[in-house]
């Protein structure tokens, strides 16, 4: 983490309404013990800015997925503290974590995002159904309009193409107006055209709808859609880049690879 970001975080207490949608302090995640101990995350500090599109990059085994899972309350940390918005999530019980994910977080996974028994619309409103909330009709229409699914709402997932399925997943993540959306390689399974489509929707939802998005990816092109890229290696944040382009990310990755192999 950069000195500037740390300074910003230090100024605000993690209990109040601030500029960060999520924060992590000294987060360590280790598996096993003693000789066989493997450290996936090593004292990571990170802040996710509200209303921004953040990409997390790094080679396989760098800990990028683990970081995302911990931030999203899917996985527990060994040490350190994590906040979503103004609420600390470390130490929460499963019940509270579940409610947190339901009410404040949206997810887009790489594949198998949708329930095969529900149609597109039912999948989109599922998190609100689970919470027992009525979806905001105007907002829902806008989201559906944005992702361009108006004609396919009654389709079952098996009747949709891979790109369409991911767009339904994006709509589901957006529809509940979560504080933050986590994407785990959301375009990893798509061809470049469908991938670009989905990334454009994510970008637009940040710009037009003010959504906060964190996306794990290993694709420089995908990272190029973000406002900021965090680079992870061996469980640590080793660099970050603002206003990235596909080329600059690729360049950075190359350098990074070179450094690692040297």
């Amino acid at each position: 983490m950069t000195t500037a970001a740390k300074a910003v975080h230090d100024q605000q207490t993690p209990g109040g309404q601030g500029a960060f949608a999520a924060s992590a302090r000294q987060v360590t995640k280790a598996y096993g013990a003693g000789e066989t101990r493997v450290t996936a995350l090593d004292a990571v500090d990170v802040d996710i800015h509200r209303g921004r599109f953040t990409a997390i990059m790094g080679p396989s085994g760098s800990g990028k997925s683990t970081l995302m899972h911990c931030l999203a309350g899917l996985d527990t940390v060994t040490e350190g503290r994590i906040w979503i918005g103004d609420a600390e999530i470390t130490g929460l019980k499963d019940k509270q974590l579940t409610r947190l994910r339901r009410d404040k977080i949206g997810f887009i996974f790489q594949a198998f995002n949708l329930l095969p028994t529900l149609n597109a619309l039912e999948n989109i409103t599922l998190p609100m159904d689970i919470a027992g909330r009525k979806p905001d009709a105007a907002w829902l229409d806008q989201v559906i309009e944005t992702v361009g699914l108006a004609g396919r709402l009654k389709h079952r997932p098996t009747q949709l193409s891979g790109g369409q399925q991911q767009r339904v997943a994006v709509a589901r993540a957006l529809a509940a107006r979560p504080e933050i959306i986590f994407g785990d390689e959301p375009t990893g399974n798509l061809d470049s055209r469908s991938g670009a489509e989905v990334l454009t929707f994510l970008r637009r939802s940040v710009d037009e709808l003010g959504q906060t998005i964190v996306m794990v990816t290993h694709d420089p092109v995908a990272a190029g859609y973000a406002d900021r890229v965090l680079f992870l290696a061996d469980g640590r944040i080793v660099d970050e880049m603002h206003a990235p382009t596909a080329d600059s990310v690729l360049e950075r990755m190359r350098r990074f690879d070179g450094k690692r192999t040297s």
Partner: protein
Amino acid sequence: MLLKTSLRSFFAHKGRMILSLIAVVLSVAFVSGTLVFSNTATGTFDRLFASTASDLSVGQAKDKLTADEQEGGAASTVPVDTVQKLAGLPGVKTALGQVMVQSAVLVDPKTNKAVGPTSGAPTLTGNWVETPRKSVDITSGSAPKGAGQIMLDADTAKKAKLELGSPLRVITKSGNYDFTISGIVTFRTTNPGAALAFMDTPTAQQDLLGTTAFTTVDLFGDGSRSDDQLKQQALAALGSGYEAKTAAEQKAENNKDVGSFLNFMKYAMLGFAGISLLVGGFLIINTFSMLVAQRTREIGLLRAIGGSRKQVNRSVMVEALILGVLGSTLGLAAGLGIATLLIQLMKAAGMNLDASSLDITWTVPAASYAVGVLITLLAAWFPARRAARISPMAALRDHGTPAEASANRIRIVIGLVVTGLGAAGLAAAASADKAATGGQWLGLGVLLSLIGFVVIGPLLATGIIRVLGAFLPALFGPSGKLAQRNAMRNPRRTGATAAALMIGLALVTGASVVTSSMVSSANAQIDKSVGADYIVAGQGMGAALTPAMVSAAKATPGLAHLTDAKELPANVTAPDGATTETKLVAATRTFTEDFRLKTTAGSLTAAFDGGIAVPQDWATKHQVKVGDQVKVDYGRGRTQSLPVGQIIDSGESLFSGAYIVNTDTVTKVVPEKDLPASIQLYGKAAPGADPDRTLTALQKSLEAYPQISVRDQAGYKDLIQQQVNQLLYMVYGLLGLAIVVAVLGVVNTLALSVVERTREIGLLRAIGLSRRQLRRMVRLESVVIAVFGALLGTGLGLAWGITSREVLAGQGLDILTVPTGTIVGILVASAVVGLLAALLPAFRAGRMNILAAIATD
């Protein structure tokens, strides 16, 4: 190679196989347990009979037209000098005169309760003689001497808490005799349950027979002649009027008596074993279907790299074979446990069997393996065929398990046609004129409707669960909605799971409709046709009403009359010359006030005015009309010709198939002393007398005879209800096994579905479904499947039960009673069963690690 893959695959999926394995084990255990049990029972009796049979037993030749001792007739006897006549024959070592009757009743005077078997086994009372082949030994006390001593067998003494010196009363036709127990005898082999009592020979002849004679003479040879030769000699020496049975004949006769009871039990239990096998088959089909579905990609890959369809098919079948062999082996072992359990159960019911030596013949493992392996292979054949059809393309397709195709059209058409035929069969049964034809149509209808329902199960699953589950989203929110969709997503699987439950419940419902109709019809019949207030009858064997009892009952104050009914064997000859062997009911005139029988023609009064009442079936068959003369032969040359006074309708249930005459008519040709003892007495309270007080008074008059029961109409109805219930509870108990297997099927389907939907569950948990909501989702799916199965089952069972009642309407089941309480109970219980079945799968689903679940391929 192939075997190795199959073995590996089997053990890799052992968790998923476990419930199928249990189903196979349970079913096979039932088969092997039944066989071992019936072998052991037969063995026990064989050993007993082998130990008691003499080489030759000589007695009076049986006349078919003489009332048996158990029916109130006199015991047949041979003169005392028969012993001397036989003892002198060449090849005879010993000839012993035996007295042995079944009609004496043993009573403990201290408690005034009957002593002896309650299981239907006989109480044998006789004289004590030392024989070369003994079945019992005196283990304490000494042999009885004189009129006051008696010896009792140890099992009976123990059960009745009697010991040396305890008083014991013997009630015979000639009166009541009091004894003191002088000795206890113990059986050399296991005694299945008969009670034995011995007196000295003069006392036995005096008290039991009322004459100095023997019931049989037992011969023991010196080995120089065969039993058959002894028999020929004996019969030649004695002349006519005697019959002789060799050891082999005695054994065969005894076995025939016991065998019919044991065979009934054996076939009933094998029937239920068959049902549980059928139910278990559905479970196996489901397991293999799911395994195949889950391995679609793997199988696709195997096909892509060159595996043939045959190889794929065979690999599934080999897995099934392993399951079948393993299940049969464990089932065989568990069967020994079941056999032991059954033996203990029979012991509790009063029948001792030799539990120390379970008889396991080669047929037991042979039948167990045949049944277990065949059923498993048969059930796995459908999924194996489906596996072989998987295209190599499946390897390349998306993750996850492909949804099953919904029920295909051919299946629907076949299912509908078969169900339609079944319904037609039931309709034909209901409208059939004759019960016999109706019965055939009924069987066909039941079978076809069952098959039809199983075949269209998936179609019904989609339709009915849509309706059934429609309220779930409203009631249970998202869990309800997801549960409803999940229950509908694999109609074939849901159908098969529900079908397993359906079979057991259909049988239970059908049986309860028939039995409750039986009870209500009988009650209505009693209300309508019984004028008597009291019914006096003996309980169990040898419990005829002696003249002493009849006069004691008649002396009761407050009685208007007491009708005396006897049964006597007779041949009835129609005008067309056809002779029917029957047991004639002979009753005193007041019988006409006690019963209003359903009548086709004539009247009961006419029958009692020197005529006879005959059943409708017989009258129709031989074209007998009221007024026609029929010939009645009472044996020993006593015959009379009687006009038909009444034809009794075939719908009459209390006296169905009976021929009834006035006792006064019979005594015109049969001397009173030759009439058997009474079977039942019917009493009516005098006008003005308090019926309840008269009942108590009547019971008090017969207090000294604990084997005799006095009931009023309500008590009689209770008795019928009890008898029907006993039958029903046995059916329920045995069908319980089929339902247990079906419940295992629900657990199995859910558990496998949870595994199959791991990723979905992970996703649901990630986007915020709580553990409670998730568990509720699994439970609701389970309840929906169970209730669906119960609906099909009760629906089918109702159709079966109502049709059966219709078929039996001519046999006295004229009132249809649908046991609403039972049916509601079944539906509620099925929901509970669904909840219970979901406990473990729901728990496992809730505990699933979200990250691991999402990462599952």
